[in-house]
């Protein structure tokens, strides 16, 4: 029977209705926000897009890097030492090295994206590691017996078994990423993005409240329409 005991995180009508409302909510909020702050709607949306782009680029690089690090180091003799190193590095308070990064890279887009990568990468790494640990031994052996290698090995085995980890890590990592993004934009006094946008209206609680509402509804919409379906799909991939 197709679809037997699948996850149903995004299947109910209620969820779909809420999801639909959530698409409109950021836009309506943004219009109200623009009216209160007397800022143009275009400028408001431009700042949201700039921040989203920064986070998006950082996310793509962090995901690729995390996947490669796990695939190449979490196996055989390097596994224990790699895990120990990753654990220590993820505990490092990233903002303590911000002044050094600024010294070498300046108040640039590269610094912001680098900081986002450092923040996002750890949950993705550990989620992918967790996915690999759950792989049934017989799957590994079936693939070994088939002697597929190279890109076929990645396509038929590595990507499907790491997909749930990538998605779970992405959800956690992006949550941390938004927080780090706004803080980094503020600390680096970036001229664009959500950080300086919120800073400008820090003494206007109504504007800030609406800003946060837009921000939350935007994140909720992304989770609802991108991450939850992907999470469901990726888990279905390895459902036995």
């Amino acid at each position, binding site marked *: *029977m*197709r679809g*037997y*005991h699948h996850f149903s995180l995004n299947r109910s009508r209620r969820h779909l209705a809420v999801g639909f409302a959530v698409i409109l909510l950021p836009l309506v909020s943004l219009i109200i926000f623009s009216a209160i702050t007397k800022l143009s709607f275009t400028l408001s949306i431009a700042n949201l897009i700039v921040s989203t782009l920064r986070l998006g680029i950082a996310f793509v690089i962090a995901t690729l890097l995390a996947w490669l690090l796990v695939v190449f180091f979490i196996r055989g003799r390097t596994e224990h030492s790699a895990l120990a190193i990753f654990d220590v590095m993820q505990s490092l308070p990233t903002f303590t090295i911000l002044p050094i990064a600024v010294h070498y890279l300046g108040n640039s887009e590269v610094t912001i994206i680098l900081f986002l990568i450092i923040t996002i990468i750890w949950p993705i790494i550990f989620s992918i590691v967790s996915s690999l640990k759950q792989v*049934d031994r*017989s*799957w590994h*052996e*079936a*693939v*070994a*017996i*088939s*002697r*597929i*290698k190279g890109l*076929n090995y990645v396509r*038929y*085995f590595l990507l*499907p*078994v790491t997909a749930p980890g990538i998605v779970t890590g992405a959800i956690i990592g992006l949550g941390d990423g938004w927080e780090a993004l706004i803080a980094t934009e503020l600390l680096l006094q970036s001229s664009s993005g959500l950080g300086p946008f919120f800073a400008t209206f820090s003494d206007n609680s109504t504007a800030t409240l609406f800003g946060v509402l837009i921000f939350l509804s935007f994140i909720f919409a992304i989770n609802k329409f991108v991450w939850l379906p992907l999470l469901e799909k990726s888990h279905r*991939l*390895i*459902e*036995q």
Partner: protein
Amino acid sequence: MAQSIISIKNLYKTFPREEGRRGTEALSDINLNIHHGEFLVLLGPSGCGKSTLLRILAGLDKKTSGEIIYSPHFDPSKTAFVFQNFGILPWLTVFENVELNLIAKNITKEERHKDVRAILEPFGLSAFGGSFPHELSGGMRQRVGLARAFVSKPDVIFLDEPFSELDFFTAENLRKILLDLWRERSATVVMVSHYIDEAIALADRIAVFSDRPGTVTEIITNDLARPRDPRSHEFFAKEDEVKAYFLR
């Protein structure tokens, strides 16, 4: 004298000790010749190391010491393995799972698909090519496992208790298909089992294993005429003979 495709000499396997535990000796002084084209069953109680030996022979595990001599006719790329828990990949369809063992071969996609379709038929899977494993029963999943093993036309097939998780009727049916394909393909089959009647029904020879650490205590030639009738006097006599080795 039958030609050996694999010769095992003084093979030992000890699993290294984990923290706070002593190492486990799984296999001790295994000596066994596997003949070309035969159906050999490794028979013994659970945990006696039969599956470990099978995995070592298939290259899925390493021996601790001893020798495995493969004949010049043995081609590692022409082997297949059938897992007790099926070992089929849940993210691939039935068709793709079977095709997996052909992907590394130097054949065209059209040939691959033709071979897959040809092997799905005797296993009754033709209508299920697009299904995913979670949509299938245990018996159907093991059909996929067997089809995947046979699709690459292997010279040697290793089977690790392939029917132990299946109901009686499904297991009987699959044993028959296995025997038919073995005869048709002239492959060498090495199968692990802990069922005496299954071993007698299928095997040319039965290697009897002792309890852990496993060692081959006896090799019984099973020359009962095929097809074998499990209710025949000869079958019962053979069963008594095999049982006697375990009761010693």
